[in-house]
């Protein structure tokens, strides 16, 4: 066996990765090669000494110093979440009304051709892939327009109420959510 191979096996032995078969090969080589035997003995001694190296005592107060900072961070985190609490109803109202009006707006855009007599069928024929969506959004529009009784002023009032809610949610976002998010990013 070459010495390079023998030294690789010595490292494997130190790592606890030498099979019995290879261990026997290594022993045979070490019996014939004084340089590799010395190399092995020195590495063994070195690794024993490394494991026994003393470590200086850690300065006192380590745990308190770390936990002081950790408690501070945890309080800040809890405070941020608590501070968001008053804004949550507004966020809920804003999101739910957005979803409702997004559905209505989809109905207006995609259902409009159905409203114009005959145009819907032609569009549906051209966009067969979007047929299902067109049908369902048309149904939403039909429901919304029947609920409003085909009353355009009522629809305008609904839209105005939606915009008011959106503006309120935006104001809350700017006053409460945004500073909290910026604080979280900077922390």
């Amino acid at each position, binding site marked *: 066996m070459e010495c390079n191979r023998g030294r690789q096996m010595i490292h494997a032995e130190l790592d606890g990765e030498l099979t019995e078969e290879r261990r026997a090969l290594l022993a045979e080589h070490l019996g014939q090669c004084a340089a590799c035997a010395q190399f092995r003995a020195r590495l063994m001694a070195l690794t024993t000494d490394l494991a*026994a190296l003393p*470590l200086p005592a850690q300065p006192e107060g380590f*745990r308190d110093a770390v936990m002081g900072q950790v408690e501070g961070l945890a309080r800040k985190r809890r405070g941020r979440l608590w501070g968001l609490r008053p804004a949550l109803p507004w966020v809920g109202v804003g999101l739910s009304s957005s979803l409702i009006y997004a559905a209505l707006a989809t109905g207006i855009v995609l259902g409009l051709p159905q409203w114009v007599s005959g145009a819907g069928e032609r569009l549906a024929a051209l966009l067969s892939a979007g047929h299902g969506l067109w049908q369902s959004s048309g149904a939403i529009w039909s429901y919304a327009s029947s609920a409003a009784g085909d009353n355009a002023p009522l629809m305008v009032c609904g839209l105005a109420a939606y915009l008011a809610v959106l503006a309120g949610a935006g104001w809350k976002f700017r006053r409460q959510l945004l500073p909290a998010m910026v604080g979280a990013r900077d922390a």
Partner: protein
Amino acid sequence: MTELADRALVARARRGDTEAFGALVDRHRQRVFGVAYRMLGDVEAANDVAQEAFVRAFERLESFRSSGSFVAWLVSIASNLCIDIQRRSRRTPMSLDVMQEEKGYDPADPRQAAIEHRLGTDEAADAIHQALEKLPAAQRLAITLRHIEGLGYEEIGQAMGVPVGTAKTHVHRGRERLARMLHRFYAEVGS
């Protein structure tokens, strides 16, 4: 077992239980301080790095992957902080006097026995410390994690952000380099 306990504590700490994080600090403070000390060779700097590593770990607890080793993740934070400090200050190796003053030598410590028995003096520990300081940073960290902290190669690879094979190469080269640097102390061994 240790990893399972660590993961349970991490899960509790993620839910805001700071006592659980305190338990993680108690379990690993010595190891993190040890790695930082071997990397920097200075007690105060190592203590600062260890503190900072734990605080950063708490801040980034959400980014810890539960499939990995918590110790390795913690050590990677500490070693990156050490590397940043070394880059900034371009530290020179610590003098022998400072090392002797700081190494906290305790003749009653049974761990001294292996070294003292061999050489009849604590000179060997100083020589090994100095030789460690002269190793390239990657080899020094790999040797520290493997032979001083007793981590497995999987964990060393994770801590160093390298494949297992590369971690082994750093350890093997580090061992040989140390043995060459310390040939005077090991001259009688195996001859």
